[in-house]
């Protein structure tokens, strides 16, 4: 999910950086003080999750958690993910610095989309529906991120079939695992700390 330095062309890097900057600005504007501890916690979770790989058959998968971040924080996902990606680049050597904008955009924009599409529903209904919505948020976020990764590579000029093979198909098991994890976490939070799941959309719809 992290693109390394030297892979993408300059126009793609520049566009990604500009769009990510816009996203971060919106996110910071919408950041309320009470959300800051939540934001720090989720940023740390994202930071650690990408570093830990769980062996799955011949390959290994790792959690991304951008779906969960989108559900809980919305636009604040942009600054959160930017900070975590920067630290990953510095401390672990994941991704790169020139691609920071593109990587942030690829991970945070799907998070925001999940926020608008799915966050109103996670506090409604019973545990099972909450799990399903959580599952969708996780899987959709990964799916969209992979699509954006593919688009970034395509825009740089890679061959289409190659890109589809490498990025989309390879990430299908990650989508399922991430969906499962996000669903479980959402259910857990609903029981233990439902206030964490409250967002503007849930309050707007007067959810109890």
């Amino acid at each position, binding site marked *: 999910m*992290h693109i390394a330095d030297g892979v993408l062309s300059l126009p793609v890097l520049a566009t990604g950086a500009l769009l990510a900057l816009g996203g971060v600005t919106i996110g910071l504007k919408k950041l309320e003080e009470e959300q800051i501890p939540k934001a720090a916690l989720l940023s740390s979770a994202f930071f*650690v999750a990408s570093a*830990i*790989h769980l062996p799955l058959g011949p390959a290994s998968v790792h959690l991304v958690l951008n779906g969960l971040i989108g559900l809980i924080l919305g636009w604040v996902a942009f600054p959160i993910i930017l900070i975590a990606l920067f630290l990953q680049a510095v*401390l672990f050597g994941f991704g790169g610095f020139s691609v920071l904008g593109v990587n942030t955009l690829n991970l945070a924009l799907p998070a925001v989309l999940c926020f608008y599409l799915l966050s109103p529903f996670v506090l409604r209904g019973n545990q099972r529906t909450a799990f399903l919505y959580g599952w969708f948020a996780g899987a959709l976020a990964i799916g969209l991120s992979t699509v954006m990764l593919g688009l970034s590579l395509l825009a740089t000029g890679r061959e289409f079939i190659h890109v589809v093979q490498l990025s989309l198909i*390879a990430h299908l098991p990650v989508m399922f695992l991430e969906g499962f994890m996000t669903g479980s976490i959402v259910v857990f939070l609903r029981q233990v700390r439902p206030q964490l799941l409250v967002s503007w959309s849930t309050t707007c719809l007067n959810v109890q």
Partner: protein
Amino acid sequence: MVYDMFKCSIALICLIWFPSTYAHKVNLFATLEGNLIKGYGYFPGGGRVQQVKVQLLDSKGTFIGETTTDEQGRFEYPITRQGDYTLVLDIGDGHRTHFTVTSPSSEKIEISPPLQKEGGSDLRQSIDCKTELRELLEQAIKQHLTPLREQIDAYEQHIRLHDILGGIGYIFGIMGFYLMIKKSLK
């Protein structure tokens, strides 16, 4: 409810104590042996890079040729000239890395000549012996150094717990700083 907390704490414990050094990046290691550049591509923490192209560039960055890694991630490339070379491995899904191989002439092993008072053919013989000796020594030392280099390379890729903790610390630090600024601007 208790069961769920138990599940989550297990997950958290796994996340923190999981002795995993898997990294989400790709790495190259290569050495120059005689006229052959030999190396392998790997994912730090496990797994070799299979069937991926490796490009060879000279010290100025000019493209010289390319080869492909085998099932063990290994590749070889014969070179005609001594010098420093850069290898580039690009998987195509966003993972890319490079590695520079330095030629042995830039790692000269100096053997200080013993005090000698010979002359003529004796001198020539001793010079031949010395050259042979130097070459033997270089080979032997390289044999011992290469596994060490591989170990160092792999060790550098290790994700250490203190890096993780440092990152988390930075995140909370940045957030706290931001909060402080926001409050003081009120």
